[in-house]
């Protein structure tokens, strides 16, 4: 491409988002990482990578449909951060089986995905998207805060970067929970309904699995995060004057490949073009 019409990639100043060149290339420490993941570490990276990927896919669907332009930008930012986390984690997971991030994202079928049911729940109205984001971001913040100390250097590096971004996601969704709760009667009803609808899927997030026993010092034990999660959200719900919802607990099973009905549709859309062209590169 001739020089007079392009600016160098490095010149692309980022004025209103995190969307700079780091969306195009993975961090060097991941590409040139010293070690391949073991099968267990790869499985754990899939857990976290699939959660980030599915949630990013959902947020991507909001862009050009948000309640205001500022939210097109904000939800886009959150989605972009998550897709960055997904790429790093899937890339690392793939080192155990000689597969790329795209092999894992586009060529696995539903039972091979490891996502939690909460990230598979549909966008719904803006309140449902915010409630889902509020729950997941608070969980991810606690998770990545601790994963920074992982004995696995790659996971620790990914977590160190992710935690700063997830901190912003947590703040963004918290502000919206408060605005909706104290906004109008309608918004209060909607956020309260949304939290009630999403709450059954909270329990699954904090369930342990034999995999975690095998990754002592490397993975973060999900059940260990629950108290910190509860402590973090309690003051927000108190300020919002919303009760912690009570009700049934969904069966879950995402980590074992048992998914909600929503996932198959989401994957069909995400994978359709890639699968129509086996072997092609993009």
């Amino acid at each position: 491409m001739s020089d007079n019409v392009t600016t160098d990639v490095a010149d692309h100043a980022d004025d209103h988002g995190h969307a700079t060149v780091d969306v195009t290339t993975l961090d060097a420490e991941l590409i040139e990482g010293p070690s391949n993941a073991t099968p267990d570490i790869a499985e754990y990276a899939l857990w976290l990578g699939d959660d980030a990927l599915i949630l990013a896919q959902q947020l991507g669907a909001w862009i050009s449909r948000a309640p205001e332009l500022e939210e097109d930008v904000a939800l886009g930012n959150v989605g972009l951060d998550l897709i960055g986390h997904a790429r790093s984690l899937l890339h690392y997971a793939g080192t155990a089986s000689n597969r790329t991030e795209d092999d894992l994202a586009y060529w696995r079928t539903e039972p091979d995905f490891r996502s939690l049911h909460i990230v598979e729940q549909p966008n719904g109205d803006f309140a449902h998207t915010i409630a889902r984001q509020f729950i997941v971001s608070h969980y991810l913040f606690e998770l990545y805060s601790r994963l920074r100390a992982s004995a696995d250097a790659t996971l620790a590096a990914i977590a160190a970067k992710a935690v700063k971004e997830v901190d912003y996601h947590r703040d963004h969704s918290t502000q919206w929970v408060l605005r909706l709760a104290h906004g109008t009667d309608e918004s209060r009803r909607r956020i309260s309904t949304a939290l009630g609808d999403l709450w059954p899927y909270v329990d699954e997030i904090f369930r342990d699995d034999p995999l975690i026993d095998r990754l002592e010092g490397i993975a973060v034990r999900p059940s260990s995060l629950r108290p910190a999660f509860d402590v973090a959200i309690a003051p927000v719900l108190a300020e919002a004057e919303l009760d912690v919802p009570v009700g049934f607990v969904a069966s879950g099973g995402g980590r074992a490949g048992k998914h909600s009905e929503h996932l198959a549709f989401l994957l069909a859309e995400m994978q359709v073009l890639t699968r129509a062209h086996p072997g092609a590169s993009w």
Partner: protein
Amino acid sequence: MTSTITPDTSATTVISVEEQQFNDLIEADSRIEPRDWMPEGYRKSLVRQISQHAHSEIIGMQPESNWITRAPSLKRKAILMAKVQDEAGHGLYLYSAAQTLGATRDDMTDALIAGKARYSSIFNYPTPSWADMGSIGWLVDGAAICNQVPLCRASYGPYGRAMVRICKEESFHQRQGFEILLELMAGTEEQRQMAQDSVNRWYWPALMMFGPPDDDSPNSAQSMAWKIKRHSNDELRQRFVNMLVPQAAVLGVTLPDPDLHFNDETQQWDLGVIDWTEFHEVLAGRGPNNAQRLQRRRDAHEEGEWVREAAAAYARKQPALTNEREMAAS
């Protein structure tokens, strides 16, 4: 975004001191700032041009957001999300620039969703294939750059400055679009066909983005005199084609104009005859996707109304809520 300026009819023979100052600033190539006096016609032309430009950025998100959920690799998905999000940012900067001239965002939005405001008709074409993400970047963002780089020097300060930021990002978009096509052209036979078919569909509409031929564009003269606009439609279109020809050669795509040839005398690429009937059809609202694009914007706006109302109500209640908390704490 061109040829939308009506001539100033308010000119009188007696010129006020303020008007003389305004004319001097224009003459000296200085910037007009929001607090400066300006002729009503200048202000109106700018509001119309800037808001139309903003609407184009916003409607322009749709044909590409169409592919975010289906992007064929995670890298492409990330780039596309970033791009569409950039366009939302462009819309925001431009609405802000128009607001410095007294326009309100609500009025501009209402005009758009009521179908009363114009936006670039290029976005009324559909994006049936992934290669369209390449063609839009290469051709549509590319044409936008040719149109917009001169606007960085537009006489109205906030507009010119918004355009500097926007143009930087548009160049990045053009490069990404070019890369999408390059990758497709280096791919399978099906991918190459996908790319060529897409270029065939977008080439002419992209050339029409520069507006009607100069002898059919009576409104441009005043805009050029006011230095809102600095080059004629045909001049910019010619520059664009001169730029595209070598790039098409690098890509290995054919530009769908059998009459395109190099003119030794002018050292420019002469193009074939543009079929303006289609342009006028699309402009008149009969493009393939006009109704769909407006409906989507209307739906997003209406479905988001309760959210915006909640945010406004919350902001109004803030002092009261803070007091309540402080009292509870003390």
